[in-house]
């Protein structure tokens, strides 16, 4: 369909050029007739009749050549035009283009534009789908058709088959490394573990792990409630502080970033993420490394780059 539209556009430009060349042909033909009407004029300077005739013939020849050239041009454009079946392809919608009120109402034009956008969206979706399919790590469990389901069965997600002891040991090792972070294992439900990580004197992070794969991050202030009244952990309520909500968003981005770029070993994304979290230990002390100020719209520098985690405002990102 998009090809048809492009072809139609090409044909329209051909028609415009053909019209121009037809006008040109008409003008040169008129010149020929004018010349013939005027007939042989006696030369003012020279009296010889033979000379006049020669000159007339030469002029007549020139005009005929011009006519021939313009005719060839028109013929060339006519040949290059291909009959377009666009109206048949567009179906009943194409009848709108025949409506005499088309100039007043843009329904047909809008419909064609919508179709173009739709076509483009399909193209992007296909590209995105091919990129996602080529990626090794599967974060989503949603069904993507029979082929995807088959592939998933054939290739189970990474880091699934880990012994509980191995996970425990890795977590203990990780807990020792970064300074300023305090770890507390809140709950274990099979492969799922809920960790409470306190970053310096700044905030508390609730981290949900499936084996060593990070699934959810929630950042809350130090004096905020982490548990419901019945003692179960609250994994869904957002922080009441705007800066903590922003950090939660950035932390989720960091989880995705580290999980996709450092997926060679199971503990590496978690290790990188904890080091990134550690960079928030001076959230309220360090000014923005770009503008040198503490506040921007009432918020401290809440952004940390994933490679070089220095304090930076959301709006000052390099």
């Amino acid at each position: 369909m998009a090809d048809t539209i492009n072809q139609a556009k090409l044909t329209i430009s051909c028609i415009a050029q053909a019209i121009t060349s037809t006008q040109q042909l008409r003008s040169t033909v008129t010149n020929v007739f004018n010349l013939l009407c005027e007939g042989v004029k006696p030369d003012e300077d020279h009296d010889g009749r033979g000379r006049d005739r020669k000159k007339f013939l030469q002029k007549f020849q020139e005009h005929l050549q011009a006519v021939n050239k313009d005719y060839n041009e028109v013929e060339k454009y006519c040949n290059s035009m291909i009959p377009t079946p666009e109206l048949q392809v567009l179906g009943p919608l194409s009848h709108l283009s025949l409506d005499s009120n088309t100039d007043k109402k843009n329904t047909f034009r809008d419909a064609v534009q919508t179709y173009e956008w739709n076509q483009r969206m399909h193209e992007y979706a296909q590209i995105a789908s091919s990129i996602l399919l080529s990626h090794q790590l599967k974060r989503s469990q949603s069904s993507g058709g029979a082929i995807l389901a088959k592939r998933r069965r054939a290739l189970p997600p990474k880091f699934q088959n880990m012994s509980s002891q191995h996970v425990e040991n890795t977590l203990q090792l990780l807990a020792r490394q970064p300074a300023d972070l305090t770890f507390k294992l809140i709950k274990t439900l099979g492969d799922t573990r809920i960790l409470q990580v306190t970053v310096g004197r700044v905030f508390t992070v609730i981290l949900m792990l499936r084996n060593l794969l990070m699934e959810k991050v929630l950042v809350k202030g130090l004096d905020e409630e982490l548990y419901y009244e019945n003692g179960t952990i609250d994994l869904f309520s957002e922080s009441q502080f705007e800066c903590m909500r922003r950090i939660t968003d950035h932390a989720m981005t960091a989880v995705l970033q580290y999980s996709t770029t450092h997926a060679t070993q199971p503990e590496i994304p978690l290790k990188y993420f904890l080091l990134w979290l550690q960079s928030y230990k001076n959230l309220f002390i360090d000014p923005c490394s770009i503008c040198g100020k503490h506040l921007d719209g009432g918020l401290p520098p809440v952004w940390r780059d994933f490679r070089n985690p220095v304090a930076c405002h959301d709006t000052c990102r390099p």
Partner: protein
Amino acid sequence: MGVAYVSPWKVPAGQNVQQNIEELHNSIEQLGAIKTGLFTVECESYHAVNVANSKTLHLIHSTEYPASRFACFEDGPSIVSDVMLPSFLSKLRSVWQPRKGGRIESKGHRYELGDFVLKTGIISMGPSTKGISLEVEYTPCVYPCDCWGIITELLKGFVGENMATNMPTLILEKSKEIYTPDITMQQYVELFSNMRKSNYTPIVCVK
């Protein structure tokens, strides 16, 4: 509950309190703060009967903590209790009696800017107006030493660069501990005590 800094706001010569507080509201609103309601901090002072040189007991009620009453001794310890404390003190009338003219309050508007809470109140003792109070609270942080830079930077936004940036003694003493609401109430007690004195110069100066 975050870290709060309470300070008086100097009324320039030739201006009355009402005009000055409106200017202050304009400055705060220009920063992008949103008005979120009203607030009141009331202070009732008591003295011990038949005890020479006894310390004054201040009983404070703040609308931010409607279920609590704060009892602070002047330059001394403080306790946080429930709303029954005033009735309990009235039962102890033979020991603690309200001071004459000891009731003072700060009443005004409450603003929010990001995670900041700003409160501007007119301090009045009975029918007479004493001045203006300004409270800046930064809610996500609980350690005063960490967020003092942030608080002073916000204050400089509408007070001016010449603002004193030293931490008040009351906060400085507990700057590395978790901040508690009773420190805010002690700051109000100190402010009210200073306001009672006639020759008092406010810390925060206008531009």
